[in-house]
């Protein structure tokens, strides 16, 4: 069931020469397939603006109405604050369009590559490594 849902959500899953993001610590980048991207619409249930990494929990509904609880992580608050993020960037209930590098093992987790909020603001997170 989850497999078919994920396939239906895969609007973009192309081979990218994706620049290695900063994700500097706490060993999770290895869990994600940086050669793939997956884009989906969801509703924020939790916005964790904290160490070691900021992450967003959000619900994604498929055509049948099934809800899958997703999580997407990015850099630490210290790094993202330098790119304009703060504790108000998201809140529960916000509608978002999320592009992630999905977990290699097929879990509903990803590394955040792009975030589009309801007001149309786009945040690209594929920055070249410093």
């Amino acid at each position, binding site marked *: 069931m989850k*497999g078919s849902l994920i396939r239906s959500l895969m609007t973009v899953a192309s081979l990218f020469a994706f620049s290695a993001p900063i994700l500097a610590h706490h*060993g999770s980048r290895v869990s994600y397939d940086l050669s793939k991207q997956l884009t989906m619409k969801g509703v924020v249930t939790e916005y964790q603006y904290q*160490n070691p990494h900021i992450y967003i929990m959000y619900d994604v509904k498929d055509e049948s109405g099934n809800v899958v609880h997703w999580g997407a992580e990015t850099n630490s608050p210290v*790094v993202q604050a330098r790119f304009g993020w703060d504790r108000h960037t998201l809140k529960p209930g916000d509608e978002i369009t999320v592009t992630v590098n999905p977990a290699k093992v097929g879990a509903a987790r990803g590394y955040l590559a792009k975030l589009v909020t309801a007001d149309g603001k786009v945040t690209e997170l594929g920055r070249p490594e410093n």
Partner: protein
Amino acid sequence: MNYALGESSSDERGLKMRSGLFGLVLALVATLFFMPTASAQTGQQTAAAKAAAAKTQPFDPHDLSGVWWRRGKSGSTLSRNDVPPMTPWAQAKYSANKPGIGRADRVVPLGNDPMMACDPVGFPRISFYDAYPSEIIQVPSRVLVFFDYFYAHRTIWTDGRELPKDPDPTWYGVSVGKWEGDTLVVETVGFNDRTWIDDDGHPHSEDMRVEERYRRVDHDTIELNMTIIDPKAYTKPWVGETKTWKLDPKMELREDVCVPSDEAKYKEEMRVPAATPAGK
């Protein structure tokens, strides 16, 4: 002219408000605003001019104060090439250390990197992160280095004291420094053996000694050469590549604290699920 405009719009803002100069700057900004192509070209030229200016801008070679970004081609390690052979003692520890980041042939999804439990990163590992700045503050008796990453700091004593003969083991060591010409030479001892030298999981013993040589080569640049001497772990000194620190006068340090309870929540909600096959 481009260089002058760049300086006026950044470092010297508010200092040179003489009407003539201010009017000239306003006129230039207005001109550039309506000339996008020229403006883009000027931006490139300004960056180049700034780099060139750093070569001629006056500086005190004995003053390392400022906020700096660390740069090095090997990223978060001393050097990726020329790592000296490990002793059997160190090799066993290296095999047991499972990094979560770093070399592709070493990294595993759920490793045992001590910092994944918010253990202190320790020195010298704290020195290598290029996504986080550090700040040097010099006072007469010491050089203080503050690290954005993990909200850590070191004290380098420059009051002429000797290194302690039998120091208690610590995470960041005990450091003394002295100037040899225009090079600040820092010796550090007194480590516990619980930290990794780098993201790759290179171990060290309590007997590790670290030598750093800092030299401010121009207004915007410090070059750092680091050597690790630890005969219990490495069969010869590990001589690192030359690291470059770049000045960023506008940068401010922030609070990057590793909080064990936040780390535990992150592990439960993100790190472990991301490595767990769906349906398990």
